[in-house]
């Protein structure tokens, strides 16, 4: 009886016409799309950059290649990795995948989701080995993303406050603490805006920001990878000790101060120094009504080299299952050009192209950051290559350990001890 009604319903005029009309509609849409141009989509976690891509970057590409229509379709950063893996395995991901550096992109390549694009001409000509390393297999036999941008760590400061208090921009650690002491004694500004509640600032703006000066940048990082150095060695313990010294200069209740709290504290003009990275430039210039400056992590003493964490952060690669491989390759080749490098660097100040082509940086604050590349040695975040592959991942461990050191629930030695023993549990150099 029931099925009889169902059949009747399906035979009714409305239902019988629906599938047909839907089919016609779908066919029509497909027809329009294929006849005019190939549509390719970009998957990214940089939702903030939607306007930049839509209005500044993509129109330039589409003017040169009118037959290709590129869509920028970002996902929230915290969901990106899980979402992109699901979409790639389900076959619904976009044609172009914006890549996280090192292991997270490598994992996608190893699962067969990202195509090897090593033979892309521009990739070989316009990038350094260090830049390519972030998106290549360990032996370098395959490269699966075009290096796009890096972020540079350092400190931002309130220029107005510095002038008011008559303090100079510090170069060495001694000068750094002298500056902080002066600000603290004067009392109208919180010397440094950083909290430990969200934990990652302690590691990213603290440990990996100032640490390279102690472990000599790449030298120490590679020694850690090869097993010649251990996290319990003096250089790494010293980095933990260093961030512990910041405690007296942080605001009251820094233990419950989150990342956005720190951002607000600084842009409202209540704090003088903010340990950070170049990715804050756009937001801070919008929100702060005082002049901003930047300085590199302080050197150990006047004679030593300065090191910056110039972190390869964003790459762009091809979905191995894309049906528009030619169009995607055309686009990726374009991302290796100086034109793209210059567009990106100036449209998104603080995200510096990894291209070896010379680029004019127009934003003054961004220029201060990129100038650090000339005076300091570059390295990348210490835990990002290989060391975050196992359980527990050193990268995430450092968050908790650095926060613990600043909160006083661990000594620097204990933190280093724990990091090393956790690493030993799964990593053999």
């Amino acid at each position: 009886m029931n099925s009889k009604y169902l059949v009747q319903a399906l035979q009714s005029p409305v239902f019988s016409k629906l599938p047909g009309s839907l089919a016609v509609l779908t066919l029509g849409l497909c027809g329009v799309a294929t006849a005019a141009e190939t549509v390719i989509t970009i998957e990214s976690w940089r939702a903030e950059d939607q306007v930049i891509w839509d209005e500044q970057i993509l129109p330039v590409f589409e003017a040169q290649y009118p037959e290709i229509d590129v869509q920028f379709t970002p996902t929230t950063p915290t969901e990106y990795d899980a979402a992109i893996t699901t979409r790639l395995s389900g076959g619904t991901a976009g044609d172009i995948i914006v890549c996280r550096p090192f292991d997270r992109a490598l994992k996608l390549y190893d699962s067969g989701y990202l195509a090897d694009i090593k033979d892309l001409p521009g990739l070989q000509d316009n990038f350094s080995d260090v830049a390519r390393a972030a998106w290549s297999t360990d032996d370098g036999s395959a490269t699966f993303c075009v290096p796009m941008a890096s972020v540079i760590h350092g400190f931002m400061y309130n220029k107005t406050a510095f002038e008011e208090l008559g303090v100079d921009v510090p170069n060495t650690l001694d000068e750094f603490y002298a500056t902080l002491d002066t600000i603290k004694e004067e009392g109208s500004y919180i010397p440094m805006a950083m909290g430990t509640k969200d934990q990652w600032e302690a590691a990213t703006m603290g440990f990996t920001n100032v640490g390279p000066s102690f472990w000599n940048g790449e030298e120490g990082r590679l020694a850690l990878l090869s097993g010649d150095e251990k996290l319990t060695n003096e250089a790494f313990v010293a980095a933990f000790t260093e961030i512990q010294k910041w405690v007296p200069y942080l605001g009251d209740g820094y233990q419950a101060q989150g990342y956005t709290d720190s951002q607000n504290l600084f842009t409202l003009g209540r704090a003088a120094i903010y340990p950070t990275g170049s990715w804050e430039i756009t937001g801070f210039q919008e929100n702060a009504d005082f002049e901003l400056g930047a300085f590199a992590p302080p050197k150990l003493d006047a004679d030593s080299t300065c090191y910056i964490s110039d972190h390869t952060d964003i790459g762009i690669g091809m979905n191995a299952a894309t049906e528009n491989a030619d169009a995607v390759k055309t686009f990726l080749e374009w991302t290796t050009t100086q034109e793209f490098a210059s567009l990106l660097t100036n449209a998104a100040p603080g995200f510096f192209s990894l291209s070896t082509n010379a680029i004019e940086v127009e934003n003054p604050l961004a220029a201060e950051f990129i100038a650090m590349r000339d005076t300091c040695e570059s390295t990348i975040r210490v835990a990002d290559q290989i060391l975050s592959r196992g359980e527990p991942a050193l990268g995430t461990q450092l968050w908790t350990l650095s926060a613990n050191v600043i909160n006083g629930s661990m000594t620097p030695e204990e933190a280093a001890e724990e990091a090393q023993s956790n690493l030993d549990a799964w990593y053999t150099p």
Partner: protein
Amino acid sequence: MKTSRGRALDGAVPRKRIGTSRRWHIFVFLAPATVLYTVFAIYPIVETLRLSLLVEVDGSNVFAGLGNYARLLTEPFWAEQFANAFWNNCILFLLHMLVQNPIALMLAAILSIPSLRGAAVYRTVFFLPTLLSVVVVGFIWQLILSPLWGITPDAMKAIGLGSWFRPWLGLESSALITITLISIWQYVGIPLMLFYAALLNIPEETVEAARIDGLNGFWIFWKVKLPLILPTLGLVTILTYIGNFTVSFDLIYSVQGGLAGPNFSTDVMGTFLFRSFFGFQSQSGDTHMGATVASALFFIILIGVGTYLFGVQRRLLRHEG
């Protein structure tokens, strides 16, 4: 049709027929709930249990028996997190039992006094936070307690307690208790309503009889009303137990984030499960270990609820008003 109607007069056969057709109705009416429950609850549980018995080797799933459970209980990285999360859940449960439910019971007892004026207003006010989104509650309390912009430091200063203020959410010693109190503030309305409904159900004659026998006020509550609402107390206990494992995640994730800081002091089974399954920052997720944690959580709840159902509830007699 006609014949059966004719024979209906003698009883036996038609009754049987009506019985059969009634049985079909049962299936038809049960079907939507059964199908939905199977698809959205039973199937995921079975699938989770299945996933927890597998490991991934070179991209394909291989049966590993109880290997994942052994890892969870013995490998330091997993065992420490598991023990810590479980212990924090126990604290959370105890605090809710010792603070939330007595407060709810007390408020319900006061609200159920017939002569109380404005009971409806109080009832609404007490229940309102329950209706708020956890994210909103988390955000509001973070702001209230913020050492930078919060109202608490100033308010405490105003009454001379300024030096007692601490960034409670950021301290290992107090973060979990603070979270628990926020949760109690939000959810006290649910046990309150259950107790309140149970108290209203107690017949007036019983209370009157007690009064005639010479009891009054507190003693009526303690000797008469409380024993009569014991089944509700049991229900609230089991709801608190389940909520403590499932609902606690929302609040902790929205206030303290996935790492449940400081130093994992607010980590519960929910946040631990989230990190294992989806990964966190550079730690990549592990579907099978995630499923194992989820299954462990499932068994913990199952054992708790089972103990209650077979050990406690059967001995409780519901008052037949």
